[in-house]
């Protein structure tokens, strides 16, 4: 092991030589090729979009407090725009780029021991594509918004009178290319920029997850792009490919859309699974259990994700043969997912668990993902899906996996790497309180919706039967509680920037390479090439009171070297 805590530069030098202070001025950020700065810029953009998308969610929930109109001025049409914007912003601007583009950009090259991603200019380009895509979405709001639902189903999307449909289609098209280029960059980086010693099976599991995600991004997103182009053409010059009155086929649109969008839900969840693998192992201070199974299950999920899209179309007119096939294949996704959950639980078992904020998020993930995943089985079953399709049961299910799992994983990862990104420690008390509030608020909001859905409350409805009101009120109150948790998180993180204690290089006791460089990392990531070992072997780490962080103890390291784990 290299002695990274051996002769250190003085404190002053450490402060001046990090990626944040390396150069100054607006252009040094706007034109940066540094993956860390690009990651931070993504993070700022994603969190801002999360705020906007969250506001729309609160508006939707508030409107549903009473049957009929609740907020003055919010008619059914405006309500349609609210939930469409909430969905489109959260999916395309927040969840899809959140972990791969924001956290992944920051962490991936450092974890790998590389100086940068393979194509730094392309990386900056894909960030600007994200910005353009976001701008198009804003333009569409100015041009009359869009009310098609985030899925842009025909014929809603080809006939909706809202003026903003074409700009938002262009926006999502551009966002798709941002996602494609990020994925390409990461695949090449993982293939080509692994330093000597970093073999495939020594990579942290987060990298495996990002790699599997990148495969999906590269293979699935182009199909979305061409589908959206066809929609734009259909809407402008009316070619009729999706229009039954002209010989077209609207179900074909759904095939096209879900060929991308089902893999896309794994673009959202896979990186979160990767984060959770790392969080659980690091904060339980125990070697990850079943490393290869978790790694390969990520790849398996990526492949399976392409074979199950039809389960979104069970009642859309899809043929019984395909319904049966897709139902069967959908069940099989449960296998690699369950492999992961069992391995995480086994890692926790007899672990030395520190209930830090990231660990609380990881535990929340375990609970919420299990609920979300198991209710997915209900929906993959043909006959129950006929009853549950397009009800609040589906809404609750995908919020448990998209928000309760993907976003919670992202927030957990943000807390995990926050000291590394900013060089500041946040208040554990505030952070963990916020996590508990979010967890409770989330379950109050969405567990209620399982009940609502199974009783027959359809999704996307503006009005409802009075007997549903009590559940809607509970759900809305839960969403307010959850929102307060997010605001507390924001306060906790932002206040740490101002008054936070300086972060040590390794505050949690992580074994992967990013914990071997300073917090925040220097411009070139590593002063010297770090040594690559088993990143889940924590036996050589020791808590150091002086730096309030973990350091590599030479004695323990020598002892560990004598007894290799495998």
């Amino acid at each position, binding site marked *: 092991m290299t002695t990274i805590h051996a002769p250190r530069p003085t404190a002053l030098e450490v402060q001046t030589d990090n990626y944040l202070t390396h150069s100054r001025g607006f252009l040094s950020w706007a034109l940066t090729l540094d993956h860390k700065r690009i990651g931070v810029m993504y993070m700022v953009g994603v969190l801002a979009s999360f705020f906007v998308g969250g506001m729309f969610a609160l508006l939707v929930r508030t409107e549903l407090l009473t049957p009929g109109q609740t907020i003055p001025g919010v008619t059914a049409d405006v309500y349609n725009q609210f939930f469409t914007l909430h969905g489109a912003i959260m999916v395309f601007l927040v969840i899809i780029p959140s972990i791969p583009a924001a956290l992944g950009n920051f962490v991936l090259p450092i974890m790998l021991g590389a100086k940068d991603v393979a194509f730094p200019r392309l990386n900056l380009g894909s960030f600007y594509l994200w910005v353009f895509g976001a701008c198009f979405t804003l333009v569409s709001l100015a041009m009359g918004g869009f009310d098609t639902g985030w899925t842009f189903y025909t014929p809603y999307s080809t006939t909706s009178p809202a003026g903003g449909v074409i700009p938002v289609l262009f926006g999502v098209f551009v966002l798709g290319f941002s996602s494609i280029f990020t*994925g390409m960059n990461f695949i090449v980086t993982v293939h080509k920029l692994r330093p000597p010693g970093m073999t495939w099976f020594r990579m942290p599991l987060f990298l495996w997850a990002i790699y599997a995600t990148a495969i999906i991004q590269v293979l699935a*997103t182009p*199909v979305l792009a061409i589908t959206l*182009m066809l929609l734009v053409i259909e809407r402008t010059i009316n070619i009729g490919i999706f229009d039954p009155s002209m*010989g077209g086929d609207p179900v074909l649109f759904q095939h096209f859309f879900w060929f991308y969008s089902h893999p896309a839900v794994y673009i959202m969840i896979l990186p979160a699974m990767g984060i959770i693998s790392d969080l659980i192992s690091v904060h339980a201070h125990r070697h990850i259990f079943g490393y290869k199974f978790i790694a390969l299950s990520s790849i398996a999920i990526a492949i399976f994700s392409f074979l199950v899209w039809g389960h979104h179309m069970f009642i859309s007119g899809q043929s019984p043969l395909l319904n049966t096939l897709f139902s069967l294949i959908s069940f099989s996704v449960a296998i690699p997912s369950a492999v992961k959950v069992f391995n995480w639980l086994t890692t926790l078992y007899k672990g030395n668990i520190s209930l830090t904020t990231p660990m609380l998020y990881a535990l929340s993930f375990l609970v919420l993902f299990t609920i979300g995943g198991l209710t997915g089985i209900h929906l993959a079953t043909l006959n129950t899906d006929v009853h549950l399709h397009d009800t609040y049961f589906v809404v609750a299910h995908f919020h448990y996996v998209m928000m309760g799992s993907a976003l919670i994983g992202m927030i957990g990862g943000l807390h995990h790497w926050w000291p590394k990104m900013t060089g500041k420690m946040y208040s554990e008390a505030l952070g963990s309180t916020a996590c508990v509030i979010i967890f409770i608020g989330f379950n109050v909001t969405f567990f209620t919706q399982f009940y609502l859905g199974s009783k027959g409350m359809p999704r996307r409805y503006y009005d409802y039967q009075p007997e549903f009101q009590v559940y809607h009120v509970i759900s809305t109150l839960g969403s307010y509680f959850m929102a307060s948790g997010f605001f507390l998180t924001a306060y906790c993180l932002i206040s740490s920037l101002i008054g936070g204690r300086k972060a040590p290089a390794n505050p949690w006791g992580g074994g992967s390479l990013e914990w071997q460089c300073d917090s925040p990392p220097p411009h*070139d990531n590593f002063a010297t090439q770090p040594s690559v070992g088993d990143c889940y072997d924590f036996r050589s780490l020791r808590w150091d009171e002086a730096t309030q962080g973990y350091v590599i103890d030479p004695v323990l390291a020598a002892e560990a070297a004598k007894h290799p784990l495998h």
Partner: protein
Amino acid sequence: MTTLPTTHAAPHDAPEHGGHDAHGEHAKYPFLQHHFDTPAHQFGSAKLGMWLFLATEVLFFGGLFVAYAVLRARFPEVFSYASHYLNTIMGGVNTCVLILSSLTMALAVRFAQTNKKNAMLLCLVLTFMGAVGFMVIKYFEYSHKIHQHLVWGKTFYVPPDDAGGEAEKLVLSKAPELPAALVVANPAGPAIPAFEPIPAVEVSAIKAANKAPSGLSTPREQAKEEGLPVASHDAALEHPSLHLSDPKMPANTHMFFAIYYCMTGLHGIHVLAGMVMLAWLIWRGARGDFNSNYFTPVDVGGLYWHIVDLVWIFLFPIFYLIH
């Protein structure tokens, strides 16, 4: 982003890199970026990146190929019929133009590898000329078809200068009768005959393939023979929707042209993008950026150009060569 060769050396201006640098490689090869060890490392990464991009291109076009397959399976008679309005000669010439430009592109890569700057530039210019030639032929094909009103969507049946909708009525008047079973089930059926695909179109009834390029001028004669309404004055010869009087026209013929314009149009956009890329390569090549050690842009640019060729290799038979 500037593309000056000096910036290839170091996007970051940090002088010190530790560790796994192959010492001296960066000093020896000024084009080598700071995070790659050797020229081969950089070249291999660029190639892998390009191949991944080509994979996205395959899936991008793939969506349209799937749409094509679904439509063709649904309306085989439409594809068999409408294909004869495409000019096989022009399509065949365009195929040859693209194949030759692919060959010159492959030669350009070889000349770049062997430090033959002028030969490389000549080949790049020839490739560019091939792209121009392709687009010119494409322009004539498109303008001819649009003039003949072989277009997409409902406008296929309603020419812009046909205010009275005569042409459309003509189509509907020739639409096949519904099968009796359907008429019983749906009394409104006969009002919407245009949607009924012709159950069976005998292949021999369609105009002989070798007459296809001139097929556009025959319907009027046929129409006269068959006593269909044809405007008597000479201007009718210029009527942009002569296909409408073709008695063999199956329902939903516009679908063929919709997918035809989508696929060849998207391909055309890729050719245009390829022309921009080729111009950039010629500019950089003329400046002397490429040599046997550094020709990555020519190589990956060539890969892009070949995939444009590859797509056309499939587009040609599926549109022009339907018997």
